[in-house]
């Protein structure tokens, strides 16, 4: 089964074509990394898959359904969830409430104004279990905007997976982290993506080769290689186009 | 026909007046993201300053001094007020200018009284310039056209021929880029805000005696200027110009034709009586709708086409 299928996907901003015909199939349960030099269109590709921008050509299916004309929240409800390159959380709400907001839709509360959240035992327990998993229990009642950078990144991963989506998109989850923080984040990602499809953009090759089952190399809006990490490392075209000029 | 030509001229005069106000607001809103409620207050201050100054030294010096005073007021507001509030976001800035507009209105009431002040057209220009089909066209309106036309030229030259003008142009469409280019953003903001306020003040100087100089003039003019800015679109002075002229024409013509839908229906043989469904809607005359039209346009544009006529991005 395919989780995400891109077929000749194109995207132009004005006259500039940023994504130039990307075809990619990501089977269910795979941990997939997208790498490529700056400006290759990795984040744009994420924005297309998650419905933040409409595509200019081609087609995208998520869990077998076409995402054409779907709003981000509708794509989310197909079982796809994402994080952002620039940390995106709810800064003026507590850490606990951030996680709970991530859970609400999937637990069927929708736009309810007749349930009192304080009385929803199952919801509270689920949020607390996730906080424990993220190692954020001690920060439970702090405003999310006051967390440290690494904690905010962890919180965002928490919000992303809270809804129980089976496809997780992470945009540079370890960007700007120290070594120990990165190691912790990799562990966390491995833990939370267990049994799920993971698609991530990442610059840190240690993270990529440590986590990914398969790696796709995107250069100037085109896929130049898509293979197992070991094969990518040995791929001459990749070396020339990417690793050779932008060694990490 | 004569009604048409006179109304066209009047509409043009009013439209140019609107543009003097709206151009500054477009600059401020597009660059700084501040929906400046106090902009029309500067218009009012311009009129009142000009009135007081002209009592002592006459109209002509007031034409220069009052806008400059307004410019200083604008610079002060930007440097000591807005900049402080800026870190709390756009809504806080908007609220700040809203409070300011409130205070300025009350301040004007305290300073000059609740009643309109007798701010009159200078004697030198108080004669009919020409008359078309028996309707006089006052020389002062031609003078207004001249001043606003000169201002239009000055803005255009300033934006296209000077270095700072080019930076401002860039900032209109890509406000986030200006800082990255290493320009002194706070100083540009202060300059634009002061210039916009001075321009609004100038509009007040020449508009105050054309209309009525009274404490409520800011609150009647303010929303109309907003409409023009939204209609023209963010980041586009050309759009702003077209919208100003259109709005001037619409408002002038709406006053001229005293008809209602019921009158039109009567022409095709359908008589509206008090018993007809929606009789109240059908008998509303065009001048009364004309007063509503700007707001209707604002709502519809923002809901269905938020980038306006020629905007580069959504409002």
């Amino acid at each position, binding site marked *: 089964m395919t989780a995400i299928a891109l077929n000749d996907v194109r995207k132009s901003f004005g006259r500039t074509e940023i994504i130039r015909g990307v075809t990619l199939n990501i089977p269910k349960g795979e941990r997939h990394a997208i790498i490529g030099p700056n400006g290759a269109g990795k984040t744009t590709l994420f924005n297309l898959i998650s419905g933040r921008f409409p595509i200019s050509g081609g087609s995208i299916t998520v869990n077998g359904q076409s995402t054409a004309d779907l709003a981000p929240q509708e794509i*989310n409800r197909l079982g796809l969830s994402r994080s952002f390159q620039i940390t*995106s959380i709810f800064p003026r709400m507590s850490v606990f409430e951030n996680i709970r*907001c991530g859970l609400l839709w999937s637990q069927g509360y929708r736009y309810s104004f007749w*349930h009192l959240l304080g009385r929803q035992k199952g919801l509270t327990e689920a949020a607390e279990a996730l906080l424990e998993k993220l190692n954020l229990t001690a920060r439970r009642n702090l405003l999310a905007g006051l967390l440290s950078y690494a904690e905010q990144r962890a919180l965002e991963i928490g919000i992303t997976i809270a809804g129980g989506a089976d496809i997780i998109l992470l945009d540079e989850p370890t960007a700007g982290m120290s070594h120990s923080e990165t190691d912790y984040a990799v562990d966390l990602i491995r833990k939370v993506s267990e049994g799920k499809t993971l698609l991530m953009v990442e610059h840190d090759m240690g993270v990529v080769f440590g986590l990914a089952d398969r790696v796709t190399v995107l250069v100037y809006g085109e896929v130049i290689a898509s293979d197992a990490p070991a094969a990518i490392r040995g791929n001459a075209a990749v070396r020339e186009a990417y690793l050779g000029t932008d060694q990490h | 026909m004569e009604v048409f030509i006179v109304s066209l001229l009047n509409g043009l005069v009013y439209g140019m007046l609107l543009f003097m106000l709206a151009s500054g607001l477009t600059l401020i809103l597009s660059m700084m993201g501040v929906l400046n409620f106090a902009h029309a207050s500067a218009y009012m201050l311009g009129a009142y300053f000009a009135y007081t100054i002209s009592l002592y030294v006459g109209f002509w010096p007031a034409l220069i001094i009052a806008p400059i005073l307004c410019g200083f007021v604008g610079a002060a507001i930007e440097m000591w007020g807005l900049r402080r509030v800026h870190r709390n976001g756009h809504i806080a800035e908007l609220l700040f200018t809203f409070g300011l507009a*409130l205070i300025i209105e009350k301040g004007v009431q*305290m300073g000059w009284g609740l009643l309109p002040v007798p701010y009159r057209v200078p004697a030198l220009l108080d004669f009919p310039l020409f008359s078309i089909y028996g309707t006089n066209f006052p020389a002062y309106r031609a003078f207004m056209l001249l001043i606003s036309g000169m201002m239009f030229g000055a803005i255009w030259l300033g934006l296209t021929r000077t270095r700072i003008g080019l930076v401002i142009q860039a900032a209109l469409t890509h406000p986030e880029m200006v800082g990255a280019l290493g320009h002194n953003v706070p100083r540009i903001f202060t300059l634009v805000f002061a210039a916009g306020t001075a321009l609004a003040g100038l509009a007040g100087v020449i508009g105050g005696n054309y209309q009525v100089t009274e404490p409520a003039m800011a609150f009647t003019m303010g*929303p109309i200027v907003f409409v023009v800015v939204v209609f023209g679109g963010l980041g586009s002075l050309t759009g702003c110009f077209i919208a100003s002229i259109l709005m001037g024409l619409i408002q002038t013509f709406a006053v001229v034709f005293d008809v209602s839908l019921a009158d039109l229906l009567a022409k095709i043989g359908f008589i509206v009586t008090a018993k007809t469904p929606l009789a109240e809607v059908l008998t509303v005359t065009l001048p009364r709708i004309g007063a509503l039209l700007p707001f209707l346009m604002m709502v519809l544009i923002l809901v269905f086409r938020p980038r306006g006529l020629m905007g580069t991005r959504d*409002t």
Partner: protein
Amino acid sequence: MSFVRRNWLWLLAAVILLAVPFLFYDWTKGRHSGFALTLLSEIGVMAIFALSFNMLMGQAGLLSFGHAVLFGLGSYCTAHAINAVKAGTFWMPIELVPLVGGLGGLVFGYLLGWLATKQRATAFAMITMGLGELVSAAALMFMAFFGGEGGISIDRVMGTSLFGISYATPWQVYCLVLIWAFIAASLMKLQTETPLGRIANATRDNFERAQFVGYDPRIVRLMQFTLSGFFAGIAGGLYVMIYEIVTFDTLGAAKSANALLAAYIGGAGGFFGPILGTIVVVLLQSGVSLISSAWLLYVGVLFIVMVMFAPVGLIGLIGMHTPIRRIGRLGELVVPYLRAFPAALSVMLGFVLMVELASNITIGAAQGKKFAIAGMLINTGSPVIWGIGLLGLIGGGFWLRIEARRFRRRWDALIEDAKRQGVVV
């Protein structure tokens, strides 16, 4: 017992609010003060209105400049309902009449909200402003529903009470207002703790994030707007009951601005802020307006000062003391506060004096008013009195700066201490 412990604040407020009118009770005649009761009722109504406004601004980050439209339409619906009941068209207990206003607010909230909530932030603010102007202009066009300039008058003595109360006296109306105010306020408080209430916070903080957890921000905004219209309508319904008339200015921009001023001065961040702000604004409006025509100027200045120096509002300022109270050192602020007080008072009095002098020269004199302080007639043109005002304002300003600096040092030290003790992070 646990109910009392959990809701002690509400119960305390209820007791105080029932007791306050008796401070103004005329024991010789055995009568309540009509003025005090009307003022208190007005505070109750405007508090509901400001809270409903804050459902948009504080909770959902939506700044409305036309919120009074929903308030006013609620008023008109209620007025028509009361007249229909009087005419015998249908029967309805008078206690439930404000609900008609609520339903009117709900329906119009949905209709107008459908337009307004297509946008957010500045565009939303402008749409609501346009809608406000449109509806108040329409009020003068459609005589049948709005009654033109004269408005719609009612007689609240309907004789359909469930409890046999006539509602002929202001005291009875005040009690009805109080009950509805408590119902509305507690419902709004509960609403903040529902999924919709929380997601409204989320869309305020980061609407895009809210989309990527499955929510459509537009629907969140629309539902929040509609619900807030319901409560604004209830406030409007009660308003008719108090004054027995509704005119087109209940829909107008000034009324909308009142809610904004109250919510912001009180503090939009906390739930109770708007109530505090309403008390301040209504007291200034009804109290100060008796002796000065400049009340709106004072409200405006207060508003600007809050926007510039204390965007958290009065409730936020009070809340800032919590960590210092927790470490038990609140007492150490008493002296700095007392020292700053006369300086602040001097600035305020200087400012008020100058405003009043100016207002008397331009407005008061035209109405033939004399300017007197404590019975002493004062020549408003005298440079001495202006000098006193100026000295109070500027001299007091410098004095306040010095005291404020001293206060700040003390404050920072205490907060630092609270941090060390782990009370704040």
